[in-house]
């Protein structure tokens, strides 16, 4: 097996994960990308989506992040995410409820609130998607 890399997930209130993994698939703003040990140094924005942690050819953990930043360098991959949670903890009902609220808020929002509401809709959509895809 190839070398491992250190994966870290940090939120403003805590260091959520710090472990050795084989590969991390990160939802970058321009598309998902996998990070293996020895990856070239990269800085990227994240979109709302699922971070998959691979070990021994299998996804061992999936985490949902609502945007943030990723840095890969020196055999480590650091994610800065304002909000993150285990995909297994997402309730499909909660996610779709959030989407509905977000869509309603988007419809009611004025010019200034539009962007924020659209952002919230994107996050909620990604959450619903993550919840529905989890079993597969």
């Amino acid at each position, binding site marked *: 097996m190839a070398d491992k890399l250190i994966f870290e997930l940090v939120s403003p209130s805590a260091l959520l994960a710090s472990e050795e993994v084989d590969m991390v698939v990160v939802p*970058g703003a321009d598309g998902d990308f996998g990070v293996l040990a020895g990856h070239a140094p990269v800085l990227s924005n994240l979109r709302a989506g699922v971070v998959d942690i691979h070990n021994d050819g299998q996804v061992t953990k999936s985490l949902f992040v609502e945007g943030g930043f990723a840095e890969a360098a020196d055999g480590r991959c650091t994610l800065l995410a304002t909000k993150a949670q285990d995909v297994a903890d997402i309730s499909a009902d909660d996610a779709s409820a959030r989407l509905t609220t977000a869509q309603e808020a988007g419809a009611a929002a004025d010019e200034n609130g539009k962007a924020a509401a659209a952002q919230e809709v994107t996050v909620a959509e990604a959450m619903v998607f993550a919840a529905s895809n989890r079993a597969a």
Partner: protein
Amino acid sequence: MANLKELKTRISSVKSTQKITSAMKMVAASRLKRAQEAAEAARPYAERMERMISSILENTAATEGGSKLLAGTGAEDTHLIVVVTSDRGLCGGFNSSISREARNRIRDLQVAGKNVKLLCVGRKGRDQLKSEFNDNILETYEGIGRSGVTFDEADEVANQIIGMFDSGEFDVCTLVYNKFVSAITQVVTPQQIIPVEINVAKETTKGDEAPASEGPIATYEYEPSEQEILSELLPENLKIQVFRALLESSASEHGARMSAMDNATRNAGDMIDGLTQTFNRTRQAKITSELIEIISGAEAL
């Protein structure tokens, strides 16, 4: 000698005050511990964010002026001061030292002919500045950190600041808060957050991990682009700075309250000792004088 009864009630009232202050001290001590842990937990995020920003700044030093948050508006006419205090009192000089600093700052700026706007986090700061600068206070946030400071609260304050900055309401933004040094020491710290002070880059390269990553830093790839990352990273950094200030301030508040209440408890103890002594003396004097009266009465017969 009706005085004896008065002394007794006095002693019992001081005793109950002492009970209250010592209970408040205990509460403050346990809150302080939690607040301190929260402040420490927030550190990794802030450190990594600073590292990212400094690595981008090193690469994009030439393209300065891309973001207003970084370069400022080019003017310094209107200053926004964010005054971070607590909602509740009984914490020694915690709030008054902040408002003193804020007041001095406002006066200096006004003398220099600048406009000053105020954003108060915490009710006490607003109360203390209201009499003099009521017209300058734009908004007050209350109830922050009642059950521990959360990132959402910092987010709300920071979004307000960014919103105001984007609509050109001010040029320079400074946070004034108590930095936590230890349970008995808090330092009033003014920190400029807009435009971002350049020493951010210098400070972080001195960090412990810097030597190892010094080489590859220059060769980062940026996805989608440096400017786009920077445009998201800078507001995020601002939120973190606000979050940090709130955390520091909350830890300081509990520390200050703890030592204030410790003093109060000790003072109450001294007072009780003094009062008890007076009480005993008065009682003895009373007994003595009653004896003399009885004896002299008996002799007269």
